[in-house]
């Protein structure tokens, strides 16, 4: 691993992103619009928005970064640029962390936009700590990036990569406690949901929203998300092969 190469890779990924204003706009604007839509849908029951908006702030970064990264990485694999990169002094960790850094930065901007809109324009109650809320969003985004990198190894085309979204993200979404509390699910599902990282992001956001101080459970949730992101990055980097048959 070489920090200079990690930074160069992050810079390259961001430069590619900069050439794609439509994607940037979608990534930044879509969550805000969806939050607003959500508030309007439940306009008769404002409490529902207060209850679910924090969990949505945890879900968007995972969802969007997963999608963006898996497609970007399938492109690297099928376009031959990945094979070429692996013949250069660039380390596998440099590549993974470079992507993680670049999309983590994008996630930070997205988190600022979405939570800003939710708090200022849509009247979401102030959480215990806005910086910790952003921290969870960024960790969640890096997790999405890491999962996307791993899944890209299983997808031969960009078309297939998109199909992995319902397979990898939707079950987490259902079991995260966002739709219904995990305690009211079938007993065995609670066990399954404990190994789903999104559960911890949703739990952390909910605790931040409903308390005035940052509890130790929130830090634990954040630690689990970060740990899962690291594991997913390590597993993902094993899918980068320097030699093939």
């Amino acid at each position: 691993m070489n920090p200079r190469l990690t930074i160069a890779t992050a810079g390259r990924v961001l430069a590619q992103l900069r050439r794609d204003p439509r994607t940037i706009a979608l990534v930044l604007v879509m969550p805000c619009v969806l939050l607003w839509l959500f508030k309007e849908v439940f306009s008769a029951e404002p409490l529902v928005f207060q209850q679910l908006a924090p969990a949505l702030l945890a879900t968007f970064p995972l969802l969007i970064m997963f999608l963006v990264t898996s497609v970007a990485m399938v492109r690297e694999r099928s376009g031959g640029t990945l094979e070429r990169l692996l013949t250069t002094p660039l380390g596998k960790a440099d590549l993974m962390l470079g992507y993680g850094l670049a999309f983590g930065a994008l996630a930070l901007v997205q988190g600022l936009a979405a939570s800003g809109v939710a708090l200022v324009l849509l009247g979401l109650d102030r959480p215990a700590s806005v910086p910790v809320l952003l921290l969870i969003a960024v960790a969640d985004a890096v997790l999405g990036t890491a999962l996307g990198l791993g899944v890209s190894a299983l997808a031969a085309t960009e078309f297939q990569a998109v199909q992995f979204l319902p397979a990898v993200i939707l079950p987490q979404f259902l079991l995260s406690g966002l739709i219904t509390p995990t305690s009211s699910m079938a007993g065995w599902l609670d066990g399954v949901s404990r190994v789903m990282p999104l559960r911890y992001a949703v739990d952390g956001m909910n605790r931040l929203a409903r308390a005035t101080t940052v509890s130790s459970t929130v830090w634990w949730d954040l630690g689990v998300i970060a740990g899962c992101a690291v594991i997913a990055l390590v597993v993902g980097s094993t899918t980068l092969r320097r030699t093939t048959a």
Partner: protein
Amino acid sequence: MTAIDIRQLVVRRRGNIVLDHIDLAVPVGSLTALVGPSGSGKTTLLRVLVGTQRITSGTVAVLGRPAGHPALRREIGYTTQVASVYADLTALANIRYHAAMHGAGRAAALDALARVDLAEYADRLVRNLSGGQVNRVSLACALVGRPRLLLLDEPTVGLDPVLRRDLWALFRAEAHEHGTTLVVSSHVLDEAARCDRLLLLRAGHLIADDTPAGLLDATGAADLDDAFLNLVTDAEVPA
């Protein structure tokens, strides 16, 4: 001194023999053309040298180390047949990324761009360049690290005759003035006349390893195209 030393190299892929008992030595500072019909194993041989192709048996030494050794990643510049560059970056940004991997900066990237005659396209997005220009951006990415060994897979495909001539002049200069070793694959024999050594591959067999002049003498052919046709039709290829 030899830059490449291959002994009894065999590569099988899904039960098929792709390269069959290749023996080969390439001296440092030489320009070698690797020629053969499509599917003859040219790309596989280059991938063996760069270390991305798993081999079945034999030994492959590159710059005194086994092929694929991590230290070789700093010493080898490689271009694939399909230009592997980022279409959504400018020409210069692509080359600067590769420059960064070798600790070089903007000046080195601009120099590499000038060497492939694309200086005025530095800020053009790769997706807006022509096929031949994209190939040259890919080539500049390989040149920018000033590698000791350049492995180029069909770098002149889709280029007009003038550009082909200029690129082969560049390859010769890299070899004879900078001491770089080059192995350049091509299916155009006419180009191969401009190299020091010719390797002819057919169906995974090395059927000739000679200078262009030596090949003409040995086959008694009037030009390289005839020499190649003679060799290809004469060669006994075991099933």
